[in-house]
């Protein structure tokens, strides 16, 4: 059966990276279309009229929006290969909980670290490290959050690693010093082709963040 899969994406987006990793893990062939977010394509506006955001997954012409929903969707459709969510309902609930936690904390706090200064930035850094430590606790001694293999939480969380260098530079702190286990986990993920091919170079992301700061008039 021929499946047509298109991903509307933007290279520095951690949300887009999740889909790149998930599609690669499942061995799904797809067409990637890079969006210029200052000049959104008609296709993007048509496929995601409410949020007008990437990534958008278009499967046989039908759009699926929101990266967490997209990852769950492809895990259900292509369930026979590399399952991302466990089969036990309680383990699934735990995975969804931590994926939501990582998603909300990293998005919100990460942005505050690069886009703010002074007390707001200091508070964000503190909460950021606290959140990472909670995630480290959840990882425990497992090689991945998913156990022996990459799972849902790994796919949702690891893209933010490509932004860590930018956060460190903007926030003048070391994530490695505070959370060495998590950094070891991230490097382990990067040994997988699905992850290394999906995450941009950290320096490149930092360059992008500097551009954004300039564009928004943030020092």
């Amino acid at each position, binding site marked *: 059966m021929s499946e047509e899969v298109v991903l509307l994406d933007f290279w520095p987006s951690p949300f887009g990276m999740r889909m790149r990793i998930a599609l690669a893990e499942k061995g799904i062939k797809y067409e990637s279309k890079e969006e210029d977010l200052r000049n959104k394509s008609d296709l993007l506006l048509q496929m995601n009229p409410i949020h007008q955001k990437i990534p958008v997954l278009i499967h046989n012409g039908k759009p699926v929006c929101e990266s967490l929903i997209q990852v769950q969707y492809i895990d259900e459709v292509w369930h026979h290969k590399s399952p991302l969510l466990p089969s036990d*309902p309680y383990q699934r609930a735990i995975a969804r909980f931590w994926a*939501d936690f990582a998603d909300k904390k990293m998005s919100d706090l990460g942005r505050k670290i690069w886009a703010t200064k002074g007390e707001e930035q200091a508070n964000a850094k503190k909460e950021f490290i606290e959140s990472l430590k909670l995630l480290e606790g959840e990882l425990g001694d497992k090689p991945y959050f998913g156990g022996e293999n990459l799972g849902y939480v790994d796919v949702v969380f690891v893209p933010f690693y490509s932004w860590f260098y930018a956060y460190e530079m903007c926030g003048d702190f070391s994530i490695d010093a505070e959370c060495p286990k998590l950094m070891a986990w991230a490097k382990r993920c990067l040994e997988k082709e699905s992850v290394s091919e999906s995450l941009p170079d950290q320096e490149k992301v930092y360059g992008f963040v500097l551009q954004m700061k300039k564009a928004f008039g943030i020092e």
Partner: protein
Amino acid sequence: MAKSDVKVLGSWPSPYAMRPRIALNIKSVDYEYVEERVWEGKTELLLQSNPVHKKIPVLIHGDNPICESLNIVQYIDETWSSGPSILPSDPYEGAIARFWAAYLDEKWFPSIKSIAIAQGEDARKAAIAQVEEGLALLEEAFGKCSKGKPFFGGDQIGFLDIAFGSFLGWLRVTEKFNGMKLLSEAKTPALVNWADRFCSDAAVKDVMPDTEKLAEFGKMVIAKIRGAGAEIH
């Protein structure tokens, strides 16, 4: 399964706390409901079962706590799989249901709350317009999801019905406080009928808070947010 094996920690005014209870009712699962008066303080049980967020609802199944209302609903659906299905079986329909549930939680309900705390008439009108825009989108979504059937989930209450229906209490309170209809025959006829069906459903009736009682509670909350001295009865 013994009643005490399934506990829900909730709070009667919380729309989120309604969700697991509706789901358990759909599955005909007996459970013990524990009222947490979170505005007065948090119990040891709550802090132990949800140490990360310290929020209700929490479902405690045996020794296992499950947190986050929509996460709990999915867990209930997967665990008691012999009962009526809550999530659609088709992955695409499931993705659509999850999309709208996320929209409701992240965009729409916050816009309801902003009506209550809007300062000045212009801000209030703008907040109302936002809510109405969202309802127009949901009216359209209802047409697509229900395909002529009574609920978003089809013949029976499903995931999106639960996600949206749990906000009806506060929607009605907002209508009351602002002397207007947000759901109306003129603009959202399908949703008006859906709302009546949802609220009278056996799985929902006993869990939906009384609008008057909720309005009184709402006044207290708004006063607190505004920093004005609140009369707490």
